[in-house]
């Protein structure tokens, strides 16, 4: 009877979970090296940076906007960190400053999009270039590598018996934080309601502009954190840092079930989709699949994943059919 009410069980998340298990099994078949706690945790490292960006992007997407400049903000962040390190600041001073710089870059996007009502795809396409240019201009030609070890622990050290990378803990913390924010606080509810109907939200006292700017700022701050992880992990700060990773980030968000038009989706879906993509890539990598094969698999996965609505509709029709029959009986 509860027709057209909200589905209690997020079916897409379930599908993702099943797919992750399947991918895990597949991976362990592909490579004997796959099944090992150490290995799996080690492999998560490569998804921390896109993962942090995906969390930020998910917030932006929930309001119906998009931000493709996040990877460039990472570069701004790493370069800024290198300048601070070179100037002799300690990591405890430098890190917050970098996060603030990230947030400021995000805020600028947010102001352009929300305050001035410009289309977010086009705006962030512009700032994507501008921020990367800025990172190059500030970072100069060669980049910077003489980081003190204190700058590196966030990306290189491990915890809990030298198994769990600190960066993974950072990601988990961020994911839980963003999940709580988006699904338990009024801020998150505001975001989703804006995604569904900005006009009605504005009439209901939701400060649309402020909320949108905040999502951009938070996404920028997460990109700042990603910059810290980047430097920790790779020890390198150059203008081209994280170049080209934004498409993967968008893929993860979308595959996680976020509606690109806003208003729908869950953070857990995004995290699960990252896990799925990570598992698949890890398995294929360990089996030494060629890059092109991986690219094709990723493409097929995405297209398959997006035929999801059509699939879901078919499923729903089937279910309705059976329930109608039951009702008739």
């Amino acid at each position: 009877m509860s027709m057209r009410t909200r589905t209690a069980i997020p079916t897409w998340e379930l599908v993702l979970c099943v797919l992750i298990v399947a991918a895990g099994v597949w991976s362990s078949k592909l490579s004997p090296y796959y099944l090992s706690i150490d290995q799996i945790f080690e492999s998560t490292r490569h998804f921390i940076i896109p993962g942090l960006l995906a969390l930020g992007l998910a917030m932006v997407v929930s309001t119906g906007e998009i931000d493709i400049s996040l990877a460039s903000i990472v570069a701004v962040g790493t370069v800024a960190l290198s300048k601070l390190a070179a100037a002799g600041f300690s990591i405890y001073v430098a890190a917050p400053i970098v996060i603030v710089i990230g947030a400021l870059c995000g805020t600028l996007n947010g102001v352009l999009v929300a305050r001035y009502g410009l289309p977010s795809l086009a705006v962030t396409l512009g700032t994507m270039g501008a921020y990367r240019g800025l990172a190059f201009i500030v970072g100069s030609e060669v980049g910077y590598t003489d980081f003190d070890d204190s700058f590196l622990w966030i990306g290189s050290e491990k915890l809990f018996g030298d198994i769990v990378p600190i960066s993974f803990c950072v990601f988990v913390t961020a994911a839980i934080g963003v999940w709580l924010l988006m699904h338990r606080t009024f801020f998150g509810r505001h975001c989703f309601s804006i995604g569904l109907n900005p006009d009605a939200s504005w009439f209901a006292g939701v400060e649309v502009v402020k909320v949108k700017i905040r999502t951009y700022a938070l996404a920028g701050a997460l990109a700042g954190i990603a910059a810290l992880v980047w430097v920790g992990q790779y020890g390198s700060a150059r203008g081209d840092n994280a170049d080209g990773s934004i498409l993967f980030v968008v893929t993860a968000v979308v595959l996680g079930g976020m509606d690109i038009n806003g208003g729908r989706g869950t953070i857990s879906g995004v995290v699960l989709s990252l896990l799925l993509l990570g598992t698949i890539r890890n398995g294929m990598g360990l089996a030494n699949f060629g890059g092109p094969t991986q690219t094709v698999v990723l493409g097929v996965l995405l297209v398959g994943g997006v035929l999801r609505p059509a699939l879901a509709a078919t499923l729903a029709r089937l279910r309705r059919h059976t329930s109608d029959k039951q009702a008739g009986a």
Partner: protein
Amino acid sequence: MLGDIALSPEQNCKIPILSLDGICKSFGPVRALEDITFDVFPGRVHGLVGENGAGKSTLVKIITGLEQADAGRVLLSGEAVRFHTPIEARAHGIVAVYQDPKLFPHLSVAENIALGAYPTLPFGVINRKRMYGTAKVLLERLGSEVDPQALVAGLSVAEHQFVEIARALSSDVKILILDEPTSALTPAEAERLFRVVRTLRDHGTAVILITHRLEEIEAMSDDISVIRDRRHVATKDAKSVDRASLVQMMVGRPLETLFTRRDQPTFGKEVLRVENLSLTGVFDNVSFSVRAGEVVGMGGLVGAGRSEIAQTLFGITPPTSGRVWLNDHEIHPHNPRQMLDLGLAYLPEDRDRDGLIMPETITHNITLPILRRLSHWCFVDRSQERVLAEDASKSYRALTPTVEQIVSALSGGNRQKVAFAKWLATNPVTLILDEPTHGIDIGSKAQVHEMVAQLASRGLAVLLISSDLPELLAMSDRILVIAEGTLVTEFLKNDATQEKVMMAAAQQTRRVRR
């Protein structure tokens, strides 16, 4: 006003041009139409009435091929037809003007009209000259002076409506369906439209007219069909029904008299005071005040600027000048959040777009403006939220099985109740209602009226904007009349009559258009 009904020649009426035979339609579990059967005759206007959510618009969609019936047949001149798109229907001479104007903002007026069948030159090139010429002729026929080359993006709502109607008339119409065509028109504009409709009818076109304004039905219809609870109740010759029996057929019970406020209200202190409020190009030097427990009506023609005044007070568009006091404090409205916090709530005119988030649940809609208050340390208290929503849902008699229902699945009246519940949850001291009964059926209307009276007797200051004069007169303690952006007069309850308000509203004042 809309007198002089020209009766159509009797001989035209023998064979139905369109017959509906047992049409059924459900949207998933929602049953929208059951067993609709009636005939439409050429050269006659067929009025179609029914409460909100009765299924009138759905019927239109089925006839024109936007939706497919689950069962039943549509017969065109005795032959069963099934259209898959409105284009096919149009090819058979069936054209509809749907409930809300749906035009293409980036195309010119003429293109919006010609889109279905562009006049072409050899090689399929669009003949622009002919296109503009045809559009001009059609619009002139409707008495509209819209420039065919203008972009639709810049037009007013009424102009949209005319373009839409011109589009309907651009093809060879045998059956014209008008779904609430006058809701955005002034009486004069409506009369222009109806004049065209009568001409069409006299030339043998069958017209299906859907409207909630019973005067229009009475003035225009030759036949009247009533749909109630998604079923066809009756089809009658217009001459054989009076308004009382019509309403009884619509609501399934005897006509209640319009709700009037019986108690002698006692007014408290002044809650809202507005002085010389102006918004350049929209309204000018508006001053008035509302006391606690008072219902102040605001009348005027559509487009007079009443909604804009209300929205300015609610902080949607900040005023260019003027002063506003709420509870003796001067305020500068610039943001709905601020106004809600100060205790002023505004029920928007466009419920489905501004008033509610349609794909959300009732609970989430009701609590949206007060989420902050329902939160501890930013975290929403979801049990408290649920309790609040259920209470509200009960007290406003929104008849739904659960508050987890998605709002878009509700009927218009129930949606309006959810909207009411939402604004009242903010505990306002001042409430601005913009056309609260607009497009609502008579049953829900009475409930809304009762609610407004109750709120006022609880000491709320209410500003009621309504284009429904009887309602305005019955509900208000005082009536302000706005004409072309200026406050022209003020009537006390007992002085006001429909005629006086109408006269004042129709005044020509100097007008700055933006």
